[in-house]
C-alpha cells in the first residue's frame, strides 16, 4: 500500500466511524428545531446565542450543519454501499449464468444488459425514479436495477475463459456437478474484477444518490442525505454558500477515496504497470 492508498483508507474509515458515532456525541437532535431566529445561517466557526460552536455553520433552520452532514453520511453511505454491492451481486449472478449456460440464457441476459447499457445510467435512474415513489429504499432498488449490467458483462467474459481452464475440467472429472463447478470453482476465480467494480461502484452509487436526491427524486427531507442537503442550500448559494458547499466537500472526499481504493485494487490485480517515457 502506498501513501495515497493508506490516506484514502484512513479517511474512508474515519468518515464511516464519524457517521456512526458522531450523531450520538452531538449535543442536539439533528432534526430538532431550536432557536431558529438566533441560530439560522451562522457561518462556519461561529457561535450561536447560547454560545455553542458550529464548526461548519448552521442551515436556514439553525440546525448544526456538521451534525446533519454526519447523519446524512449514514444514509448516503448505506444507500451507496447497499446499492453497489446489490448491483454487483445481481450482475455476478447474471454474468455467471450467461457465461456458464451459454445459448438462449446468454442471449437473453446479455440482450437485456445491452439495452440497459444503451441508456445513460442517470437517464434510466430518472425514468425509474419518476415512475415509482421516491425514497431511500426505492433509490437502492433503482441503483441495483440500473447498475448490474457492467458487472454482468465482466463476469460473463471471465467465466467464459475460466470454464476452459484445466482446473475446471479437473473438478468436473472428479465428479463435481455443474452447479458446484460453477459456484465453487469458476465464480470465485472471477471475483477480482467484481471487487474492483464494486469499490468503484460504491463511489458512483453515492454520486448518483446525491444527484437523485438533489433533484428531489431520491432520499426525501427531512431525513438528510448529502444530495438533498446540497439541494437545500441551492437557493442560499449567494447568501450562505457553506450550506451547499460543506456537504458536497464531504461527498467529493468520500467518492475520491472510493476511486483511489478501486484503482489500487485494480493495479494490485493486474500487477503494477510501469512505463518508461520514450
Amino acid at each position, binding site marked *: 500500500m502506498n501513501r*495515497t492508498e493508506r490516506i484514502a483508507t484512513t479517511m474512508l474509515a474515519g468518515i464511516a466511524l464519524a457517521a456512526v458515532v458522531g450523531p450520538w456525541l452531538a449535543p442536539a437532535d439533528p432534526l430538532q428545531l431550536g432557536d431558529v431566529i438566533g441560530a439560522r445561517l451562522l457561518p462556519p466557526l461561529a457561535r450561536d446565542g447560547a454560545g455553542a460552536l458550529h464548526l461548519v455553520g448552521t442551515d436556514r433552520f439553525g440546525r448544526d450543519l456538521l451534525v446533519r452532514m454526519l447523519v446524512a453520511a449514514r444514509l448516503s453511505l448505506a444507500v451507496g454501499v447497499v446499492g453497489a454491492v446489490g448491483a454487483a451481486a445481481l450482475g455476478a449472478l447474471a454474468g455467471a449464468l450467461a457465461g456458464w449456460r451459454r445459448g438462449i440464457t446468454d442471449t437473453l441476459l446479455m*440482450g437485456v444488459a*445491452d*439495452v*440497459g447499457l*444503451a*441508456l*445513460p*445510467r*442517470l*437517464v*434510466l435512474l*430518472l*425514468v*425509474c*425514479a*419518476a*415512475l*415509482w*415513489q421516491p425514497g431511500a429504499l426505492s433509490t437502492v432498488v433503482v441503483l441495483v436495477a440500473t447498475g448490474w449490467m457492467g458487472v454482468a458483462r465482466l463476469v460473463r467474459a471471465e467465466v467464459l475463459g475460466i470454464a476452459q481452464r484445466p482446473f475446471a475440467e479437473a473438478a468436473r472429472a472428479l465428479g463435481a456437478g455443474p452447479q458446484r463447478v460453477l459456484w465453487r470453482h469458476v465464480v470465485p476465480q472471477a471475483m477480482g474484477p467484481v471487487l474492483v467494480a464494486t469499490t468503484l461502484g460504491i*463511489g458512483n452509487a453515492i*454520486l448518483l444518490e*446525491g*444527484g437523485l436526491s*438533489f*433533484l*428531489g*427524486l431520491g432520499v426525501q427531507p427531512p431525513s438528510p442525505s448529502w*444530495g438533498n442537503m*446540497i439541494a437545500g*442550500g*441551492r437557493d442560499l*448559494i*449567494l447568501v450562505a*454558500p457553506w450550506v*451547499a*458547499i460543506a456537504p*458536497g466537500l464531504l*461527498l*467529493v472526499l468520500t*467518492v*475520491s477515496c*472510493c*476511486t*483511489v481504493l478501486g*484503482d489500487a485494487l485494480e493495479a494490485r490485480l493486474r500487477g503494477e*504497470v*510501469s*512505463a*518508461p*517515457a*520514450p
Partner: protein
Amino acid sequence: MTIVSPREFAAQAPPRTLAATKQRAAIDRRHPRHDIYAVPRFLRRLAGALVLVWLVFTLTFVLLHAAPGDAADLLIPAGATPADAARLRASLGLDQPLALQYAEWVVRAATGNLGESMALARPVGAVLADVLPASLALGLASLALTYLVGVAIGFAQAARRGPLDTLTTLATTAVYATPTFWLALATIALTTLGASALGVPAAWRLPAFGLRSPGLDLTGWAAFADIARHAVLPVLVLSAVGAAGVARYARSSAIVLLGEPWMRTARAKGATRRAVRWRHLLANALPPLVTLFALALPGVVAGSVFVESVFGWPGMGRMLVQAIGAHDVPVVLGATLAYAKVVILANLAADTALAALDPRRA
C-alpha cells in the same frame, strides 16, 4: 522458381499484354485488396443498433406498465372525476389487451408520434425539437472540450511521470468524484461572490443563469456573443468533470502503450522521440481514443441534466427534470428515447471507426 503469392504477384510491375491484364483482374477478383466485408459488417451493426433502439422502446413500455397503477394514473391530473379518468383510459387505449397496446406503442414510437405533453398541451416531438438546439450546442461544445483537454492531460501525464503526474492524478481523481450539480453551485458562488469581492466590473462578469440576457433585444453577432457568454460557465463545469474522467482513461492507456516493446524498438532503430510520439504512439493510440470518445458521451449527457437545471439552460436535460416533476410521462419517455438514440448512434459510429482503424477488431 520462386513461389510468389497472388498478392505479391499482383503488386509487381504493371501488366503489359492483354492476357496479363486479364490474369491480373482475375487475381484481383479472387484476392481483393480492399476489405469486402466492410459494408456487410456495417449493415449488420446498423441492424443491431436498430434492434437496440427497438428494445429500448420495449423497455420504456415495460417500465411504464410495471410502475404502480397504470399510465392513466400518472396522466390524470389531481382532482379529475372518475368519469374523466375512465374516458382518459379509453382514449389512451388502456382497456385494450396488453399486446395490442404494445404494438401500438412501437408503431407510434417508430413513426415519431410520441403523443402530447400533459403539462404543455403540445406534441412531444415539437417540445423536444424546441429544446434540442440548446442542448446540442452545450453538449457538443462540452464534448469537444472534455475530449481534447482530457486526452491532452492524460497523455502529458503518461509522457512525464513524477511528482507532477501524481499531483495531477490526485486532482483528476477528485474532480472526477465531484457531482456536476455541486460543482455548478460552487462555481456560481465562486464567480459571483468572488467577482463582487474583487470588484470586477459588471461587463466582465459571466452570467450564471439562462441562455440570453433578459430585456435585451439583440440580433446577429451580438445575440451570438450574448449566448456564448451565457454558455461559458455551463460548458466549463460540464467539461471539467468529463475531462477528468477522460484524462484518467487516457493516462492509463498511454502508459500501457509506452510500455510496449515496439516503442523501445522504434527508439533503438534510431527514430527520434518526436517521431516515436507522433507516428508510432499516435497510430496505436487511435483505437483507444475512439473508444474513449464513445465512453465520454454518456457522461456529458448525464452531466448536462444537472448543469442545465442549475444554470437554467433551456435544453433537454432541464426539460426532462421539469417533466419528471410534473409527471409529464410522454415527455419523459420522448426525452429518454432521444438520449438512447444519441448514445446508440455514437456507439455505432465508434464501432465502425474502430473497425476501419484496426481491422483486428472488426
